[in-house]
């Protein structure tokens, strides 16, 4: 429960309110995080927040992408290179790797692309392991799309990348509409398709439904759920969702488990 000291290295402002930075350990490195797991990042004197790992630069240097929405994330967004943070983790259950040879459909909305980025990077680096791999990305506007500079690299690595925005700006020639409009036709073999979804819960509900309508079994659809993670070890109960403590049993879970829970009001 005691944070390890990490130092912010290179930081890239992805959008007006979202930043990606690398963290290098100053103390003994924490165990290596798996894609989909999260760390508790502590801005000293401000507070602690759960942030998914968005990439790894070496065995000990990893990346986080966060959006400034509250006091702590604003402090982390403003933190410059050289700033020291407290880090605990990694926590939770990450993405279960798809079976070899299966098709993979990745659906990300907004900041939800961050925890899926390591999965995409893994797919690019191990392209031969999978069949068709498609990444569908939704954002509020073109200016809010994350990692845009990396899309050409993903596509060159054999990944099909499709993006859409809710509201187009001047000059935008891409898709406009909800992510579900890009899902028809993506599932060739439902029984051999694995899907990974991360984004606003409503978006995931509609996307999961659209994939299940194409025959993908609920258990083959993984979703990353977010609740109020605090302790990270399943002790405090703040992140309870029905029988799940998401900091321990999630954040990634099968939609067969999540579906009955996310449809219950106030749960």
């Amino acid at each position, binding site marked *: 429960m005691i944070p390890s000291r990490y130092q912010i290295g290179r930081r890239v402002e992805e959008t007006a309110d979202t930043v990606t930075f690398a963290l290098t350990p100053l103390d003994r490195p924490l165990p290596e995080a798996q894609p989909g797991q999260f760390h508790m990042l502590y801005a000293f004197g401000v507070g602690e927040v759960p942030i998914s790992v968005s990439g790894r630069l070496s065995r000990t240097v990893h990346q986080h992408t966060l*959006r400034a*929405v509250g006091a702590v994330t604003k402090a982390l967004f403003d933190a410059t290179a050289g700033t020291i943070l407290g880090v605990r983790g990694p926590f939770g259950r990450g993405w279960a790797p798809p079976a070899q040879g299966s098709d993979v459909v990745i659906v990300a*909305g*907004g900041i939800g692309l961050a925890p899926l980025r390591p999965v995409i990077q893994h797919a690019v680096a191990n392209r031969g392991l999978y069949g068709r791999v498609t990444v569908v990305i*939704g*954002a*509020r506007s073109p200016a*809010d799309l994350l990692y845009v500079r990396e899309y050409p690299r993903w596509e060159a690595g054999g990944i099909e990348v499709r993006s*859409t925005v*809710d*509201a*187009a*700006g*001047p000059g*935008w*020639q*891409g*898709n*406009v*509409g*909800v992510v*579900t*409009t*890009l899902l*028809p*036709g993506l599932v060739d073999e439902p029984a051999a398709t694995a899907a990974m979804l991360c*984004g*606003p819960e*409503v*978006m995931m509900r*509609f996307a999961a439904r659209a994939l299940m309508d194409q025959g993908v079994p609920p258990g083959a659809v993984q979703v990353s759920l977010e609740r109020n993670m605090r302790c990270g070890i399943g002790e405090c109960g703040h992140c309870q969702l029905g029988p799940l403590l998401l900091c321990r049993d999630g954040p990634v879970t099968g939609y067969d488990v999540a579906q009955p829970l996310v449809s219950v009001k106030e749960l």
Partner: protein
Amino acid sequence: MTSVRESLGEYPFLDELPELWLDRLADLGHRVSYPAGLRLFSEGGHAEHFWLISGGAVGLDLHVPGRGDVLIDTVHPGSVLGWSWLFPPYRWHFGAVAASTVHAVQFSGVQVMSLCRDDPAGGMELMRRFMGVVVDRLQATRIRLLDLYGYQP
């Protein structure tokens, strides 16, 4: 190249429509292709046609003073473009531009409406499908109204 009749079997919009109706629609449909950037119709123009999109994508836009033509939606392959021919005043509410090279089957709204009047049962089925398209677009628009990606303090 497949015939119009054969290609109609590939559209979810026409799934399980009676063969007789597919034959009738095939007689009215014309294959068309539009290069990227070509404007199919403009806001306020007379709405005479609809299209079943088989390839490419069509952007729907609206001219906003000071902002130019702003894209508001994208119609993808397998979808239907155009329903303003169904209702008075038969004017397009938005414009449409080929976002990439578009392949489609184009129909005259007047001819299809005439077909519906001649065979009300089949026409009812076709109108029900158009209603499904309208409802899908309405639901998608409602979801966008939620501004899901925005931060709600």
